[in-house]
């Protein structure tokens, strides 16, 4: 533990960098994917294009995408923007589809009722459709945040990696500095779990109606299995 205790300031400042590298793309990605998801849900043609394309983008391995970003953006290879842009792409690829599906899953009767009550398209989206999509949206954001936090470390291979620094640096010492490596891994896992937990809590706070679903109704009608 000596090494860890001696290096708490470095670890903490790297953790802050790490979070910033991982979470900024989540925020940007979310903002970008809301209109895209809406468009994908609205027009079949848009869906037929957006969903497969985002699926394909999501399949590209992170290391490859990090390395290709300078090609696409004209940035320098060590620019943190590369990692952030790549992670934004993953976030958008993940969320566009979730949002489109979540919007499609809003019961037709609810949408109809909203229109019949005099909501216009935009008002209806924010008052009715978006809130109902929150559970799926939060699930998507959680996955994006957690996987981004883990992926930032890969960025260290091209020099931008937050806590990933300790993984490679510890491996470079001779003999390997296991304390350093394990401290890096542990902090990454910790960050991921904490962020995931906070997002889950936020999701719950935003969707009080999903709790206590099983009220006074619904007993007895349960499927009898086995």
């Amino acid at each position, binding site marked *: 533990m000596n090494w860890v205790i001696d290096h708490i300031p470095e670890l903490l400042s790297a953790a802050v960098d790490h979070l910033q590298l991982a979470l900024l793309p989540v925020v940007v990605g979310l903002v970008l994917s809301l209109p895209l998801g809406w468009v994908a849900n609205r027009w079949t043609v848009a869906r037929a294009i957006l969903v497969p394309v985002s*699926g*394909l983008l*999501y*399949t*590209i*391995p*992170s*290391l*490859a*995408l*990090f*390395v*290709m970003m*300078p*090609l696409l953006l004209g940035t320098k*290879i060590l620019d943190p923007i590369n990692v952030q842009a790549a992670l934004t792409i*993953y976030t958008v690829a*993940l969320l566009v*589809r*979730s949002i489109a*599906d*979540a919007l*499609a*899953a809003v019961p037709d009767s609810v949408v109809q009722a909203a229109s019949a009550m005099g909501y216009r398209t935009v008002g209806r989206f924010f008052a009715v459709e978006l809130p109902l999509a929150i559970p*799926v949206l939060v*699930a*998507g954001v959680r*996955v994006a945040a*957690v*996987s981004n*936090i*883990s*992926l930032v*470390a*890969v960025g*260290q*291979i*091209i020099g931008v990696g937050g806590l*990933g620094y300790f*993984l*490679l640096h*510890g*491996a470079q010492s001779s003999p*390997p500095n*296991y304390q350093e*490596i*394990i401290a*890096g*891994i542990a902090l*990454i*896992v910790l960050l*991921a*779990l904490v962020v*995931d937990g906070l997002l889950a809590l936020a999701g719950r706070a935003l969707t009080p109606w999903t709790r206590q679903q099983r009220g006074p109704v619904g007993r007895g009608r349960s*499927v009898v*299995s*086995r």
Partner: protein
Amino acid sequence: MSVFDQVGDWLTNPDHWKTTLGIAGIPQRLGEHLQYTGLAVLIAAVIAIPLGAYIGHTGRGGTVVVGVVNSFRALPELGLLILLVLAMGLTLALEAVTIALVLLAVPVLLAGTYSGVRNVDRAAVDAARGMGMSEWEILLKVELPNALPLILGAVRSATLQVIATASIAAAVSLGGLGRFVIDGNALREYDQMAAGAVLIAGLAIVVELLLTGLQWLVVSPGLRKKTSRRTRARTAIPTSR
């Protein structure tokens, strides 16, 4: 000369397609990549699919599966690889990489198989039991065929995740296509780096398309397009990259 041209030149340079001066070329690296991936996915499937099917069939332990999958998502692949390769040493490098990759693939496959079996229309399972199928027959003849779309989806996700992670194995001195990225970086040769990235992305996309095709061939036509938009929303979270 643009970077795209440089990448093109690098990829078409015959020296890079064979071992030159002891330095391995693209075919060998591709072979290594496929070897890591295939071995890991195979072992993970042998572990996870029967286990997931069992848990899905009995319904016991579902919460454990969800917990395991979620916490594994948080594990940084790079750290896992470094730790295992260092701890096990280079003579056991292949084993170390395989273990790391299996650890990544198992949760994905487990979750896919579990939810696939769980999501089978309960009425169909009830009917199967009611017509006198044994538990074994229910699993093999009803639950697994119906879970196939989700299981194959999980195989796809797991394979892609393994491909992605296998490419960072080069950071800990192993082979695979990631080698070009790492070496290119160390040598400050961006053409090599970018070419490596293109090869990795290309491999991922080709595998994705092949597995999608396989899925289309194997899954019963009765299950196609059956997933309502609602169930899609619930299972929309992919686990790849």
